Structure formats: C-alpha cells, structure tokens
C-alpha cells in the first residue's frame, strides 16, 4: 500500500519532527529532516504492508537523516538551541527540565529512549528500526534511564531495566 505525502505529513509530521529533533537537537535541521524524509518516501517505489509499516520506515529514515545532520558544521549561524527552547510553551514546569535532560544524553541513548517512550516501540521494534541487537537496545535504554534519573531525581521514576 501507499499513502499520499500530504496524508503522511498531516498524520506523522509532528512525530517525525520530534524524533529528528531528539537526535539532532536543532529545529532547522529537524525541519529539513522531515522534508527530506517525506521526499525519500515520495521518490521511493517501496510498497508497504500497512500504515504502521510506513510509519516505522519513515521513523527509520528520519533518524538516519537526523544522525547525518549532526555532522554538518555549516550550521554555525543557526539559531541557538537555548533560544529555541525558551520560545517553546510547556504544559508543566518539569517538562522543560525533562526535555533538557533528554537532549543532554548521548545521541544513541536519545534515539532509543525517544523511540521507546514517545513512539511506544518495543525493544525488538527499536532494534529493527536501528538495525541493531535487542541486547544493545536494552543496554542503551538502561543507561539512558540511569542518566535521566541522575538528572531528574524524583521527577523520573525508577524502572526495571
């Protein structure tokens, strides 16, 4: 099956943007990543089993493109992350702290933690998306949780790793 790009943009645009931002930590790069991800879909002739299959493919492409974006050095003149964060409206005062804490994690931990907590993917699904082993994903999630707990203390509950 295929879906129109406008349909995907409407349904998954914010989700792709958030995943990209979690990786590259730059709003303009995240915006580019969404655009390039949708273009990649448009240019692809791949057939999908379901909308969920499309979503997983888009997430995977977006994460990889966002990783690539982090190596570009020409972003020197970009708007700073702090300015961008200051302009956001958070529902709760702890939300900014949590977002800051996530963005301070090493990249590979950010990817795993975002796919798990925001996209609700299982360890196995994350391993498929990132083309890595389940053990690696479990390890990254465990370490990420510990780092978040260390930063957020009582705002982050202990969980079984």
């Amino acid at each position, binding site marked *: 099956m295929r879906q129109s790009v406008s349909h995907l943009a409407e349904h998954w645009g*914010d989700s792709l943007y958030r995943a990209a931002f979690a990786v590259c930590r730059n709003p303009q790069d995240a915006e580019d990543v969404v655009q*390039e991800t949708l273009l990649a879909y448009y240019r692809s002739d791949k057939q999908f089993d379901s909308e969920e299959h499309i979503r997983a493919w888009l997430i995977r492409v977006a994460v990889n493109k966002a990783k690539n974006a982090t190596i570009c050095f020409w972003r020197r003149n970009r708007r700073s992350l702090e300015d961008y964060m200051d302009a956001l409206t958070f529902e709760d005062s702890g939300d900014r702290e*949590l977002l800051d804490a996530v963005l301070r994690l090493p990249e590979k931990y950010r990817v795993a933690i975002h796919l798990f907590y*925001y996209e609700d993917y299982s360890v196995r699904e994350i391993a498929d998306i990132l083309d890595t082993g389940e053990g690696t994903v479990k390890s990254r999630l465990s370490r990420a949780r510990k780092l978040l707990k260390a930063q957020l203390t009582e705002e982050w*509950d202990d969980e079984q790793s």
Partner: protein
Amino acid sequence: MSNREKYKRAFQALHAPNNEWLEAVNMDMNRKHERFSFSRRAAVAVMIAALLVGSLTAAYATDLGGVRQMVTLWFHGRATDAQVEVYTGEDGGVDAEYQAEDDEEGSPAPASYVVTWTDENGEERQMMGGGVALEPNGVERPLTMDEYLEDLAGSPAEMVEVSEDGRVTLYWYDIAEDITDRFEDGVCRLTLTHGDETLYFTVMDEGDGAYNVSAAADGYAD
C-alpha cells in the same frame, strides 16, 4: 504520572512549523531538476561538492582498519589540506575506539570517518561522522568512499560568514564577496565565476543571523 506520560507531554511542546516544509516538499516534487532541492542542507551539499579539489592522493593505513586520504577543502577562501580517515567497521562504519569512548564517557556519537585539519590560527581541528545512503527503492546502505568525501566536502565549509560589525561575506573557492548590501527582500542573487565554472548563487536571509545558500550552474533557484 508515569515516565512515559511525562516524556510525551514534554515532547508535545515541539511542533513542526506550520507545514512550511510540506510546501517545500511539494515544490521539490514539481522540480524538473532534483539536484537543486529546496532543502537547505541538500542545496549546500550539492553546491560544495563542486569545491572538492579534483586530485586526491591516497595513502592506505591498514593498521587503522580503514583508508586515509588527503583532500583539499576551502575554508573561508583559504585552501586547506585535511586528512580523512574512513573506517569500515562491521556495523556500518563504527570505529571500536570511539564506540568505547561513547560507552564509558557519554561522548558524542561514534564516527565512521574522522577529518583532521589545521585552522588559520594553527590549531588542529577535527570532526567526525558517518551515515547511510537511501536508495530510490528505500533500501539503506553504507555510504561509499566517494559519497563520504562528497559529504565531507559539504560539511566543514562555512560559506557565509557574518563579521562582528555585521558584514556578510560569501565564500567560494578563494573568492570572498561582501554581499551585505546586495539583499533585496531578504534575498541576494549573484553570479560568481572560478576558472571555467560559473555558478548562480541565491542567499536567503532567514533571520537570527542564519543564511541559506543554494547554487546552480543553470540559473538562480526559485
């Protein structure tokens, strides 16, 4: 409230900006020439790919598990020799040494290639990164060496520089063009020639000191 609920609530503060990127996608779909994508990064990468000096000398460093090459890059009008080490690890180019550092100290993501050069102040600078290419059918594969180098050529060159006194300079090869007073409605268009090569530059002032540069050999971007 669970960690998951807190996490989702925090990230829901982020929104893709007003579907501007969707408009850009639609524009790109309608283009005749894909190589001049509206995407900022893609445009710059296409542009700077032309800056890579033609002849690359290669020296193999098997003890590093990869290939080492010397390339010439242009930084702000200055030709600079840079050393590139491309790693070819089993999992798509991750070097074990950087992986270990990442695991133990939380340093940035592991690298598939490392670029080292000396800047104008005599200080050694280094950057590292890696990536995959997406085939037209959606299948991913590790970047080839040529693609690494092309990507590399697009990475470090900061084409537009804003000085402390607000002057805006566009760099291309050894050309430094002051474009401060050449913007009309936030867009500057100019043609530069280097040797036999002529490019049409479009520089867009995006505010907050950010500039988007695109260039094409067959005319200005839309």
